[in-house]
């Protein structure tokens, strides 16, 4: 009996060693190639990037932008960590980056809060931290070096300036607008709603109702249905992302009304995903303001500045375009700056990967 037990134990131990051994070999092989890269160029910049996850096309495009910008060919070594939507995974990953002594940490935070401790550790280790997309809410802004992301209020302002110009060009007598908001409290929702509210006051639009569609198609449709029942004079819908716009279009068409430049209701949207632009080409969405996920080049700019010993701007906004159906408005002016409006064509859509 004892012998049997012993032999079973040995078998198990051997298979365990084999299992773990395989893993070990793989890793050492990978480490080997990494070393090779390091030896090739002594000034390889190592970057640890902690990404939220891969929950949407936008996010995937964001990750791809980072990976293609910080490629081996460009002289970078990118350590990419997918946090699977968990803040605690991001905290662990950042601690890991610190021990690896990466040159820069790039963080796309899952949550805005809870970064004080780990960012302090990064600061103690003299590693600059660049935040992308969402902002972090920390007690001391010195805990991060720079932030890269979208100016959501500017997006809202651009969309509203376009609507004002379009209404003038088309001779719309009055603008009765409803706002399908994003998830309440999200920075995209706050900025885009504020842009609309300010514009409604400035241009004298009737902002009939505002309700959250939580950035989803189903909720957007539901909200639009109830708004259509409540008001029969809606002529513009301001959806705070493409998914809500798809839902709103379905609801409007189901109610027997038409969308588009010659229809009853104009649908405005944000994000400019491939699907959103396809609807813009057909006129279902009249205007789609871009929310640019390609943060990589902007982050690289900041890193180059830091490498040169300069101080980068604390807040860096990515460039974002405006895509319209038709060419009724060539450009809009917001806060004294001109922004060109791009007419959506097949070419524009084919270039859009996400």
């Amino acid at each position: 009996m004892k012998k049997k037990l012993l032999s079973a134990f040995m078998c198990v131990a051997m298979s365990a060693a084999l299992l773990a051994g395989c893993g070990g070999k793989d890793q050492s092989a990978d480490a080997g190639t990494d070393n090779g890269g390091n030896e090739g160029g002594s000034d390889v910049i190592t970057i640890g990037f902690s990404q939220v996850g891969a929950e949407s096309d936008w996010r995937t495009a964001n990750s791809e932008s980072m990976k293609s910008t910080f490629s081996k060919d460009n002289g970078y070594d990118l350590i990419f960590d997918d946090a699977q939507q968990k803040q605690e995974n991001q905290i662990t990953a950042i601690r890991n980056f610190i021990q690896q002594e990466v040159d820069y940490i790039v963080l796309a935070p899952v949550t805005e809060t809870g970064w004080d401790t780990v960012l302090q550790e990064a600061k103690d280790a003299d590693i600059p931290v660049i935040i992308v997309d969402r902002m972090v809410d920390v007690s001391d802004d010195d805990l991060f070096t720079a932030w890269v992301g979208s100016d959501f209020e500017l997006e809202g302002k651009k969309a509203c300036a376009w609507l004002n110009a379009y209404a003038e060009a088309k001779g719309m007598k009055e603008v009765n607008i409803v706002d399908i908001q994003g998830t309440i409290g999200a920075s995209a929702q706050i900025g885009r709603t504020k842009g609309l509210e300010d514009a409604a006051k400035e241009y004298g639009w009737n902002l009939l109702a505002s309700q959250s569609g939580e950035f989803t198609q189903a909720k957007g449709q539901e909200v639009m249905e109830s708004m259509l029942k409540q008001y029969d004079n809606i002529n513009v819908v301001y959806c705070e992302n493409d998914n809500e716009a798809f839902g709103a279009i379905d609801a409007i068409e189901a109610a027997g009304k038409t969308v588009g430049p010659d229809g009853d209701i104009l649908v405005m949207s944000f994000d400019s995903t491939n699907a959103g632009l396809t609807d813009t080409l057909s006129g279902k969405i009249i205007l789609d303001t871009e929310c640019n996920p390609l943060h990589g080049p902007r982050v690289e700019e900041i890193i180059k500045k830091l490498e040169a010993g300069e101080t980068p701007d604390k807040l860096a906004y990515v460039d974002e375009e405006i895509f319209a159906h038709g060419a009724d408005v060539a450009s809009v002016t917001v806060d004294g700056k001109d922004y060109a409006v791009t007419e959506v064509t097949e070419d524009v859509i084919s270039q859009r990967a996400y």
Partner: protein
Amino acid sequence: MNRFKNKKKLNGSSYLLIITILLFIFMYVAGMAAFSDKGFAKPQMFLNLFISNAGLLVIAMGQTIVMITAGIDISVGSVTALVCMVIANQMENHGANAYAAVAMALGIGLAFGLVQGFLVAYLDIQPFIVTLAGMFFGRGMTSMISTEMISIKNETFLKWANYKIYLPIGSYSKRGNFLPAYIYPTVVIALVVLVIIIIVMKYTKFGRSVYAIGGNSQSAMMMGLNVRKTKLKAYLLDGFLAGLGGFLFCLNSCSGFVEQAKGLEMDAISSAVIGGTLLSGGVGAPFGTLFGVLIKGTISSLITTQGTLSSWWVRITLSALLCFFIVLQSIFAGMKKKK
């Protein structure tokens, strides 16, 4: 005769424990060899395992205890989220001080333990169902308090969270500076809890009773043990540890958020299983669970350090390990029966 049998039983589970420990050491040493240029050999990297998993370790202790009674508790992740949310909300929006927050955290844990323990022990409801309800309730209550993220800015709390305890060991950075290794108070608390639980489970009447009722509650009852009371106590202790673990988790994350700690219960269960605890009850050791937690931490650390693998590999590797250990357990259980 009885003594002899006991010894045999211990042998089976101690083999499992030895395998777990050896596996951990093997994994870590392999990591050190493969990633020495990436800082894996630094003492701080090892300590980070404890820093990042202090909350999980305490929660997994509680999980181990209920699993030894042949129960399970899948509410611990939600309890953690609720604890984080309540203390964040109380401190930031209602001006509670940090000491009151600790009391609240432990109170929530105890309340969950009491209710769930009562339902399991005295109404004989399946632990899975009871704690499933607890899990939904906890997450639901968290979102009732707030669906927004709350950042903790309470000074006392942040002082605790950021208080580094430097150790006399350390490593040199690439630039040649000596960086002393450090831990946070959470690690000390977690290790103290570990030691206490080991002692309680091994040397107290309560600990012995937990093993006895998990092994065979019928014969435990015939032996004159109060099965219901012991079960209630086990869930109460588990609830307390979930509350405490949630508090440690909160010290690490410094925020309250409804999506927090999702799936933490599964991490706790898998850590206990890898550490040699049987789902069928009666067998398990808190010391083994420690290594379950460390193995989980090491896998994720290895994959982050490697840098190009998808982080889903953490889960894939864990699932392979779980399979491996479950098969091992059933082999040992089968051998025991033959004898």
